[in-house]
């Protein structure tokens, strides 16, 4: 790497431990930065913790954030992984001062409120909570109560209980019951100061308090906020997932959703971005669970502006009545039912009764509280973002991600978080990773079992358990509190004293403890797999309703796991030494930007471009809505890329096919007749997309004076539109229809930019925008307002009744059905501007002789649209920019930075350590049938003609074991759970049952 940096030498402070903050912290930690994650609340997770499922796939999967490269990491869920080395969490901490140091470093001062519980000693037994007499409203579950000794949510991160000092009466009951003496009610606030090389602001948003929306009936019990409904529908929520009205607990049959509650009004003139989608999601969730419930949504625009969002909304449509109006008033009758007054589009007034009304509330910025400390400006309460970026601020070492910089949805927040890691890597440099030597596990083990049931009151018959295991040749010990330092040392002594080389720990649900234990045994020379962690305390001691079954469970479960370890033995594969090069396909803005950032950290890049010159679609773009000029930026970027010694730019070059695997890809390129071969550790696809070409006569395409939006923007900038008297813009041309069922994301914003430019140049020009929904989400709503103020007319049309364009008497005429007037109107226009959408450029790519798969729209398919937004199904392959779906230029750049951050994890590794969570093939048994190839979700299996057997590419394999269960000849097998181990476990579990009597 160019800059010599040591692991954890550079320090980044991440402000805010919500989804974006956690994603940034993990991405930075993966790149060798020391990270301090600061959270104001008692525990991490912010808003995402309160949402069981998120759009666009109605699932969660937050744990998929972590890339999986180290041995053993794939077994770690996020919760356990947040205890990683080099990642410090400070909860209850608030920033109060920032000092500038030399070399653009910053010193941040925090005030940490006392938790009154020493986190290192807390064993999460909940005894303090059980005895606490204080009850206060629960800010997590919203409609319920919590104690003063509490965790924000059950499996809390950091894994410790806290005491809410404000409400605690200092009665001292908790101190008496705490088994580890970890409670200190005299604890004082702590001053923390941290010196940072870079800062990531991920402070998120506050939910808009709808209290001021008196006309919408906020004071009525059956008017709830969308977050309250989220908790009501949650399995762990106040009603355990059952839909119940707050007033009487009855099941509502008629539910209304009011979108834009607190957004797009005088107090919050912007659009809160995520609400249309999450409101639709809640309607879907509710509809799925209660199919008989009648659902109505009152909305202003249906802003489903991303790749899969529009079709998501379309799928929601048939089951829901959508009314394009904001209700005027909500009243309550004597049965607590709600009367909603609204005006339909034809101007008629309606009064309708509902059982439950949900206000879909938006996001409020928090930056006014702290932006001045960084000498940053704010915009509507959010950190002001630099023009030409999505995350950059006026301070080049400070980034604002997610809702800190404007209302955001989850997928964009995560992309921005990872992009911040990429930007910081290229600013500060990153270290090479240390090697982990391969280890094999030898047969003939000596197995021990440690029980850590916490406390002596667990109801286990220790003598009986010890005798039972002794008969089986297994040594046992009871060690309390292995989560704490003392317990850990005792456990280590036990291993040494008994000369064990396998250990089952039956203890508390693994949190930080599992990682600590695995690190400890590795120091003893073990493979981490030699330690098996058995969740015992939570699911058994606390979950079983019959305490007389504890002993039996202790015997059965621990023995089954001990027997599993007894059968454990394997040879580790040789580590892969990755090529020190990245291949980027496509030299548009995203590709160029990624290449430059790779070069910044000293990674060699081959950047190929199929046309004669780099630049792609960005070459054709004019000034953006925010005033960003793409042309000089692009010119400068191309210049830098061409000058860089690290970047090999190959124009007129196409990608023929790819072979190999993560770390060792071989790309066959074609340059004219010549074939070129390049080795690369990772491949980034930034192949762009195309503008939709309307069919002849589609909205008058082909008629004189009908022009595409992008070309029209070019004309405006050249001053060729000054003599126009009237312009009609038609949106959604080639978007949101059967052929292209997605929103192209850029067109409405571009129409607004064009309209504003026209009006500013000549206020007399008539501008009409005919749109289905104006997609000016987030702060760009302010430009929509501006356009309206400037006198731009907006007419809404529906998909099944589109406007038509014709030429009559030498004039362009647009006729459109105006629902407000309930009549077809004709507009004559000097120019008709069509918002041509973005369509995928399909190009077949062969990887190991199989085509790389695309999504249903023809764009590259991310492996997880929310949490792994740039990663493709095959490990080591990434996509960014238009290749992945419609997006703005700055969003493409952000995505490129995010892909760089994820790719650098592999590029900085001297060796890719062998995995243990991996499948293999017994070549002698393999029938060469190919079933496992289709079963593998990650393309980690290939047919090896030389071996006449299927083969696993271990760098790609994620160790799920699906191949092993699919294989008809038991050739495919999984190291973590071989079938002999599973069979043995089943035997033990069923044989031991009589013993509990």
């Amino acid at each position, binding site marked *: 790497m160019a800059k010599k940096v040591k692991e954890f030498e550079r320090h980044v402070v991440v402000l805010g431990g919500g989804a974006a903050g956690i994603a940034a912290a993990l991405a930075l930690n993966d790149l060798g930065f020391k990270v301090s994650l600061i959270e104001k609340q008692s525990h991490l997770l912010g808003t995402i913790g309160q949402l069981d499922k998120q759009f666009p796939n109605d*699932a969660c999967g937050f744990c998929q954030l972590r890339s999986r490269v180290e041995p053993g990491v794939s077994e770690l869920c996020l919760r356990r992984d947040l205890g990683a080395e080099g990642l410090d969490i400070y909860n209850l901490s608030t920033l109060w001062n920032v000092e500038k140091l030399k070399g653009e470093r910053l010193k941040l001062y925090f005030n940490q409120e006392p938790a009154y519980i020493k986190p290192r000693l807390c064993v999460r037994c909940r005894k303090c909570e059980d005895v606490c007499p204080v009850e206060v409203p629960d800010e997590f579950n919203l409609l319920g109560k919590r104690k003063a000794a509490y965790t924000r949510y059950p499996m809390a991160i950091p894994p410790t209980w806290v005491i809410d000092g404000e409400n605690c009466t200092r009665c001292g009951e908790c101190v008496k019951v705490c088994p580890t003496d970890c409670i200190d009610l005299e604890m004082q606030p702590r001053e923390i100061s941290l010196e940072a090389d870079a800062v990531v602001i991920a402070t998120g948003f506050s939910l808009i308090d709808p209290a001021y929306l008196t006309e919408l009936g906020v004071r009525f019990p059956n008017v709830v906020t969308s977050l309250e409904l989220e908790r009501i529908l949650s399995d*762990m929520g106040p009603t355990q997932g059952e839909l119940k009205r707050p007033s009487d607990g009855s099941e509502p049959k008629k539910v209304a959703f009011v979108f834009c509650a607190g957004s797009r009004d005088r107090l919050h003139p912007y659009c809160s971005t995520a609400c249309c989608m999450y409101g639709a999601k809640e309607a879907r969730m509710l509809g799925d669970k209660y199919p008989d419930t009648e659902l109505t949504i009152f909305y202003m625009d249906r802003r489903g502006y991303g790749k899969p969002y529009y079709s998501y909304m379309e799928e929601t449509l048939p089951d829901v009545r959508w009314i394009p109006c904001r209700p005027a008033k909500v009243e309550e009758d004597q049965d607590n039912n709600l009367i909603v007054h609204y005006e339909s589009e034809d101007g008629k007034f309606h009064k309708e009764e509902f059982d439950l009304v949900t206000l879909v509330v938006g996001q409020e910025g928090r930056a006014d509280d702290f932006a001045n400390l960084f000498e940053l400006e704010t915009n509507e309460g959010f950190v002001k973002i630099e023009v030409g970026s999505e995350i950059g601020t006026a301070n080049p070492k400070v980034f604002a991600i997610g809702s800190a910089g404007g209302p955001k949805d989850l997928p964009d927040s995560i992309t921005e978080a990872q992009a911040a890691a990429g930007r910081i890597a290229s600013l500060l440099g990153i270290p090479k990773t240390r090697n982990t030597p391969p280890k094999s596990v030898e047969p003939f083990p000596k197995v021990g079992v440690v029980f850590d049931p916490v406390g002596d009151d667990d109801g286990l018959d220790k003598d009986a358990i010890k005798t039972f295991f002794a008969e089986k040749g297994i040594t046992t010990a009871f060690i309390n509190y292995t989560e704490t330092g003392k317990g850990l040392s005792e456990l280590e002594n036990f291993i040494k004293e008994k000369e064990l080389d396998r250990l089952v720990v039956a203890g508390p649900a693994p949190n930080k403890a599992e990682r600590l234990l695995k690190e400890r045994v590795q120091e003893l020379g073990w493979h981490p797999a030699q330690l098996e962690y058995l969740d015992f305390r939570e699911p058994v001691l606390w*979950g079983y309703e019959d305490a007389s079954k504890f002993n039996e469970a202790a015997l059965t479960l621990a023995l089954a796991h001990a027997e599993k370890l007894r059968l454990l033995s394997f040879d580790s594969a040789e580590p892969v030494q990755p090529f020190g090069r990245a291949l980027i396909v496509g030299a548009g803005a995203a590709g160029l930007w990624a290449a430059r950032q790779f070069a910044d950290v000293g990674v060699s890049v081959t950047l190929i471009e199929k046309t004669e010159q780099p630049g792609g679609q960005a070459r054709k773009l004019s000034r953006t809505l925010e005033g960003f000029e793409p042309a000089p930026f692009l010119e400068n970027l191309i210049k830098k890329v061409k000058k860089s010694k690290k970047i090999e730019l190959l124009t007129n070059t196409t990608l023929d096919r790819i072979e190999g695997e993560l770390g060792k890809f071989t790309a066959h390129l074609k340059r004219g007749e010549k074939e070129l071969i390049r080795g690369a550790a990772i491949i980034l696809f930034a192949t762009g997309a195309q503008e939709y070409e309307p069919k002849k006569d589609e909205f008058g395409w082909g008629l004189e004076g009908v022009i595409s939006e992008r070309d029209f923007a070019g004309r405006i900038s050249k001053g060729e539109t000054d003599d126009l008297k009237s312009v009609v813009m038609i949106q959604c041309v080639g978007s949101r229809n059967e052929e292209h069922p997605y929103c192209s994301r850029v067109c409405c914003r571009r129409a607004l930019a064009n309209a504003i430019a026209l009006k500013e140049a000549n206020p007399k020009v008539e501008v009409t925008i005919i749109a289905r929904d104006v997609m000016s989400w987030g702060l760009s709503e302010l430009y929509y307002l501006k356009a309206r103020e400037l006198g731009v007319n907006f007419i809404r049309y529906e998909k099944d009744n589109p406007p038509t364009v014709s030429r009559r008497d030498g004039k362009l005429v647009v006729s459109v059905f105006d629902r407000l007037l309930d009549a077809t109107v004709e507009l004559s226009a000097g120019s008709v501007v069509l918002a041509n959408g973005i369509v995928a450029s399909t190009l077949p790519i062969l990887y190991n002789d199989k085509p790389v798969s695309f999504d249903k729209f023809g764009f590259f398919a991310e492996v997880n649209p929310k949490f792994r937004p740039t990663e493709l199904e095959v490990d080591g392959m990434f996509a960014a920019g238009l290749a992945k779906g419609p997006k703005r230029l700055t969003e493409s750049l952000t995505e490129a930075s995010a892909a760089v951050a994820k790719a650098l994890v592999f590029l900085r590794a001297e060796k890719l350590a062998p995995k243990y969570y991996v499948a293999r093939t017994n070549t002698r048994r393999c029938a060469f049938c190919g079933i496992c190839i289709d*079963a593998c979700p990650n393309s980690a299996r290939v047919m090896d003609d030389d071996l006449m057997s299927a083969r696993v590419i271990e760098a790609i394999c994620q160790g*799920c074991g*699906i191949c092993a269960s699919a294989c008809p000849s038991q050739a495919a097998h999984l190291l973590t759970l071989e079938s002999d181990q*599973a069979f043995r476990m089943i035997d033990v579990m069923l044989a031991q049952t009589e013993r509990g009597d």
Partner: protein
Amino acid sequence: MEKEFDPKIVGFFCNWCTAAAADLAGTSRIQYPANVRPIRVMCSGSVDASYVIKALLEGADGVLIGGCHPNDCHYVNGNYKARRRVALLKSILTTLDLDPDRVWLRWISAAEGVRFAKVVRQMTEEIKEKGPNPMGKSTQT
């Protein structure tokens, strides 16, 4: 007096969701019958049909496979593969004269402690009604 029948259920729980849901239920003190003996697997899609058949032949009164909700799978579509396999397996069980209703596949996410407890309770009760697995060794002796 004859002892009440106490079913033995073998559980195959996905590491990412159902295994975590069991922890969540316990932490939240949401209690459930002690009849399931869990084996943690990486994915519900990795549960080999032979594991289920083996468990039934060894006398398990039921087999509960717990996986992630659709679209939530860590391995893209492992849960769908599990669903397909279990459907197939059930038809095979019928031909082997084993009761297919003793095998349950349920989606239980890591955030569903309540659902975990409900499923375990419901399954335990239904198996109790069915009575012991006729293949069970304990009933033969």
